[in-house]
């Protein structure tokens, strides 16, 4: 098969393109780029299933467990630790590489900046050494106005002067997705955090 034919196939099956990128990984940056694209794909799938992922007794765990299943189907090795209170850490590894991306998941039902900030602190001070210098905060948003919730949190982080955050808007998660870069306390290296809104509000009027 030539790459022109593969490109045509990928127009109808996005997974072909995503896996093409995966099998060509030759660096950690390539891996992070693939994780980001694959997470975008997973978030769309999760949002399509929002009706079935509404928070119940184990609502947030259900979202993370579903996300882990989708990622495993894409040949990632995923380990997760579920804890009460809407906290989940999600470790994503390539099955045949030692590269790692760690995510922290937080559930919100409205603006809750301290809760999300706690997630950022857990991610950057508890779960990562900064050696693999990329991670993310998955924000499971069950209320309306995901954009407003994310913008409020971004403004909250802008008050954390000690971190000297550098910001970049996310081009794919339009409802307030963004990136920050700061110096990781443990490693002294730049650490890039991705903030990913997952829109799970489901309140049909009819």
């Amino acid at each position, binding site marked *: 098969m030539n790459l022109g034919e593969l490109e045509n196939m990928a127009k109808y099956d996005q997974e072909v393109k995503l*896996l093409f990128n995966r099998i060509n*990984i*030759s660096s950690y940056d390539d891996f992070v780029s693939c994780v980001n694209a694959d997470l975008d794909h997973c978030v769309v799938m999760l949002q399509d299933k929002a009706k079935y992922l509404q928070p119940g007794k184990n609502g947030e765990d259900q979202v993370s467990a579903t996300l882990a299943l989708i990622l495993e189907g894409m040949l990632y090795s995923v380990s997760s630790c579920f804890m009460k209170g809407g906290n989940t850490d999600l470790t994503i590894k390539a099955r045949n590489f030692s590269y790692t991306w760690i995510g922290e998941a937080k559930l919100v039902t409205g603006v809750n900046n301290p809760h999300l900030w706690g997630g950022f602190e857990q991610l950057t001070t508890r779960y990562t050494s900064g050696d693999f210098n990329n991670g993310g905060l998955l924000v499971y948003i069950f209320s309306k106005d995901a954009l407003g919730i994310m913008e409020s949190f971004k403004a909250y982080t802008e008050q954390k002067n000690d971190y000297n955050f550098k910001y970049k808007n996310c081009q794919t998660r339009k409802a307030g997705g963004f990136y920050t870069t700061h110096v990781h306390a443990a490693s002294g290296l730049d650490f890039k955090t991705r903030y990913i809104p997952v829109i799970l509000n489901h309140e049909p009027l009819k």
Partner: protein
Amino acid sequence: MSTTKEQILADVNSMNLGVHGEIMLSVIEYIYKFNDVRQIGIGDVKEIVSNKFSESEVVLSLQKLCLLKNPILSVKYQIQIDEDLYYPLSKKVVNDAVNTNKLFIEEIGQFINFNEFKNKVFMYFQINRDKQ
């Protein structure tokens, strides 16, 4: 430590891969049945699975066989320059070409326009079989 067929089968069976898992298991059985085969293509796999699955399902399954804990396949690329002349291309060169539209051909030391030549760049899968 060499990887055994059983370890590879166990890895595939540990995941819920649906149709792809079925195709992958058929390919692994084929690889260990025909020890002389060194590479495998999409047409081969379509025959192995009796054309029961679409081409994209076959491609996805081959790609996934490259991503196992012990990948039994490795993707390889080559560009056809002439009827009988092929140059190998590394994954990095292909990746860069997809992202920048500039394909570097080491043998001639030049960049060419990837879009114009993408139909001349072929992908195939090399078998990583343990010595038995």
